[in-house]
């Protein structure tokens, strides 16, 4: 920076107060609506009234309409939240880091990437009481999610929802009494493997639906596996059915969350709480002839809702500039004024979104990746100006989509826009090279590494 500009900046700063944290020492409530697709959120443009509570929060705070996950399924995506790094770095990219039948090794952050510190650990070190209340499965503590939590609850039936995690969370908050707390609240309510209590009430299902499906986890699992083996072929009425079931689950989760908020307010525990409402990834609902999540990098998986409510901060903005979920950790630390030391600064790959909330930040490119079950290896980039580039490493297949004109990613422009494709490919590989991974030197082998217990037999 030239002397002249430095002098100018100094003088400008001299007349201003020091930059202050938005909500120093505030509580943090981080809520993961596992598997909630961004475009099924009402305030993000969905036609059904699926998310009244979440929408109310959006009106009170900041709604990020182009928030992008670093991975399309729970384990790597949530670990990216907790470390502010990409899956290639934290390396918790599958259930097993080594799969060999009975001699398998479960992927664990502390074992794979001991140099990384987690959000909960940092907050705990800074005097926070830390509690995590989850639906087990992909956020089980064995992956390293529990590091830094005073209490981490995952001993519930796999794929449990808010019906389990909310009561436990409320009990814990009650006992936290006066201490500042970080609460991670997670539920699988929206997930295909979660059965709502009493079964679906089919509130959004078309009245005359006569198809073969009942919305059960078993049927969803079958569709998931069929989709991995090839494309699924469903009649439009069946697709509508599944989307209706999905939307019902969203609405029920939203309602449960609403009750949670009321309880928090009744306890007087919400007054100084920063709320972050998000999902770790979306859900494929036949947009590309597949179901579930993990194996592709389309927007139905990587675009996630993100709402941040800061007590006292100016409200009601929808921020359309693109952000990445690796920005979450630096953002939370910035909001509550926790100091980031040199080592942590070097760890965090994202940036604080506080300037965005103050209206002063440009959108950024977002990167994501998957090695889901070693069934596939994909890497992708969503540019700040809405281009999507995806490469399937084991086949070399490239895809290019102009999201502004084709948000459904139906028209692959890879042949017709070679210059754009070339430019984005170089950016994508550069990103990984900067993380220390030369994608050109990796042997892209596909194999079977199970996530669910009935796989890879």
């Amino acid at each position: 920076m030239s002397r002249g500009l430095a002098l100018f900046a100094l003088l400008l700063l001299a007349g201003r107060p020091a930059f202050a944290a938005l909500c120093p020492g505030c509580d943090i409530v981080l809520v993961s609506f596992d598997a909630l697709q961004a475009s099924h959120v009402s305030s993000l443009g969905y036609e059904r009234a699926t998310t009244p509570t979440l929408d109310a929060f959006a009106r009170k705070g900041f709604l990020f309409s182009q928030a992008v996950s670093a991975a399309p399924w729970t384990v790597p995506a949530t670990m990216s939240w907790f470390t502010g790094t990409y899956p290639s770095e934290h390396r918790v990219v599958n259930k097993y880091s080594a799969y060999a039948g009975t001699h398998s090794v479960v992927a664990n952050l502390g074992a794979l990437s001991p140099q990384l510190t987690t959000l909960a650990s940092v907050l705990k070190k800074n005097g926070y009481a830390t509690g995590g209340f989850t639906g087990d499965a992909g956020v089980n503590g064995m992956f390293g999610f529990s590091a830094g939590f005073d209490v981490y609850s995952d001993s519930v039936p796999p794929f449990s929802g808010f019906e389990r995690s909310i009561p436990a969370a409320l009990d814990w908050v009650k006992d936290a009494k006066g201490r500042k707390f970080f609460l991670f609240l997670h539920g699988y309510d929206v997930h295909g493997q979660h059965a709502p209590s009493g079964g679906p009430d089919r509130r959004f299902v078309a009245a005359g639906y006569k198809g073969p499906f009942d919305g059960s986890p078993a049927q969803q699992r079958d569709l998931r596996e069929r989709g991995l083996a090839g494309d699924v072929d469903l009649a439009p009425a069946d697709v509508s059915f599944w989307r209706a079931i999905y939307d019902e689950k969203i609405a029920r989760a939203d309602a449960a969350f609403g009750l949670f908020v009321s309880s928090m307010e009744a306890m007087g525990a919400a007054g100084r709480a920063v709320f972050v409402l998000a999902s770790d990834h979306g859900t494929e609902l036949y947009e590309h002839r597949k179901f579930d999540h993990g194996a592709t990098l389309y927007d139905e998986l990587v675009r996630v809702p993100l709402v941040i409510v800061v007590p006292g901060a100016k409200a009601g903005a929808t921020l359309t500039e693109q952000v990445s979920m690796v920005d979450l950790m630096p953002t939370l630390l910035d909001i509550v004024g926790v100091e980031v030391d040199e080592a942590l600064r070097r760890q965090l790959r994202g940036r604080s979104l506080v300037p965005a909330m103050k209206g002063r930040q440009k959108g950024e490119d977002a990167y994501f990746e998957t090695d889901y079950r070693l069934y596939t290896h994909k890497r992708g980039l969503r540019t700040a100006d809405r281009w999507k580039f995806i490469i399937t490493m084991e086949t070399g297949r490239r895809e290019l989509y102009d999201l502004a004109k084709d948000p459904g990613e139906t028209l692959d422009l890879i042949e017709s826009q070679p210059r754009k494709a070339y430019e984005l490919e170089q950016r994508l590989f550069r990103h990984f090279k900067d993380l220390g991974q030369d994608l050109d030197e990796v042997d892209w082998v596909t194999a079977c590494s199970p996530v669910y217990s009935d796989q890879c037999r």
Partner: protein
Amino acid sequence: MIPTAGLLLALGLFLQAPAWAASPAGVCPDCNIVLIAIDTLRPDHLGCYGYPKATSPHIDRLAARGVVFDDFIAPAILTPISMASMFTSRYPAANGYTHFSSVLDTATVVLPEVLKTHGYETAAFLTSPEFYKSARWRDTHGQTPKSVYSFGRGFGTYDGGTGIRGVPGDSFFQWLENNRRSKFFLWLPIGAVHSPYGLNVPTEIIRRFHPQDYQGQLGQRVFFQWSDAKRIYAGGLYPEPGLNESTAPVPSPLTAADHAMIIAAYDAGVSYTDAFIGKFLEALQKHGLDRKTIVIILSEHAEDLGEHGYYTHYDLYNTELKIPLIIVAPGLRAGRVAATVSGVDLAPTILEMAGIPAFHQAQGRSVLAVAAGASQTKAAPVFSQRMPPWELLLHDFMTMTPVPWKNRYQALLETLDLEAWKTTSTDVSAQDGRWKLIHRRSRSFLARASWWGFLTGRFKEWPEYELYDLKADPGESRNLAAARIEEAAHLKQALAVFEAKMDRHLIKRPATTPKQWIPYP
């Protein structure tokens, strides 16, 4: 506060380097790019590299206003192998073009295709048979040369019309005129210097270098044929290896006149090529293109002219690896670069000049900053591969044009596992400008089947490593490996890493495809 700030802002902007300054030197996205690859050209036979004879007045004049690289190293010693390495910016084992019958995977990124994608009109005018595509040869040998599938990629025009071992002719100059208003990338692989030296060179040019009639023992008078080159080793001219020969052959000494004739014929080819360069530069000027055209002159590999006992490109010595590189570009100030640069650095450099990001598969890096005067921070070693083993190429030619006397060597080679040797990364070298380390991974092969061993009846044992101090011994005649290998520990380590990488890439590739005919004269 505000007025003061405003004043200071103005002051700040004034003191800062102007944001509107010209783009980095040599970057010219609107410029044409001409890549002239003069096969077999040694830099030290050009005036601008210090040659005392007047072989290259036009190239010298061009070099005087360009950047001349004094230590540019070929990635391989054989023409298409080296060129493929340059176009892909990957070493041979890593790009898959490891043999004359190889075909580059369509997924492999090549420079001409990248330039074409980015709007350049692309054309190649070939006078080197290794890149050939010609119906004439299909008629004669029933096969279409496959080079076009690798080297033709990305070229809108791929023209071999003027004949081999010459210089581009009328069709080239016509194309230049027709396309003078387009932004173009031209590739001119010129075969006029490659042996047979002086083959198609006009007599008046030959006479300039060899005024007297040669009366020596070599078969030709004005040009130097392969049939002679393959019989010369270590100062002796050996008899044709006979069909039933069992006694050690007796060579006749190569005389000073013989050597002078060979050099003269070589220089005549250089001069003939230089005359074409002169014509080309004139044409550029005539069409008003000289100020908006980047001109790059290099060779795919150089040539041993007796220093290591033979007159061809056979091994990893710098006589064969050190090649010229001259870059002339608008805004790039004339100068010389001492740093060691690799042929795999060429494509990233050209792309930077074109304002295009380099492709990630590139194993080299742009040296444009170095060309513009920045000093290279660390001399990373530069590698070269002796791939395919030269002897196996010879075997392929023998197989395709059987002549009785060749059978003995062919039979010898066929006692070895030729397919294995074809898909093995054999000898490799690493150099950093001071030290040069060669790793003889094929020494067991050479000990039994080296051509020179067969020719002279004396096979020799090869040391595993050859280490040369290029400053004290640029001719690479004193192998210091036994005494001073520790001084090259960094090269040994770098070579080990390089070899492991190359071996891994080779394992992933299928065996070489069926042979193809190269229309050598």
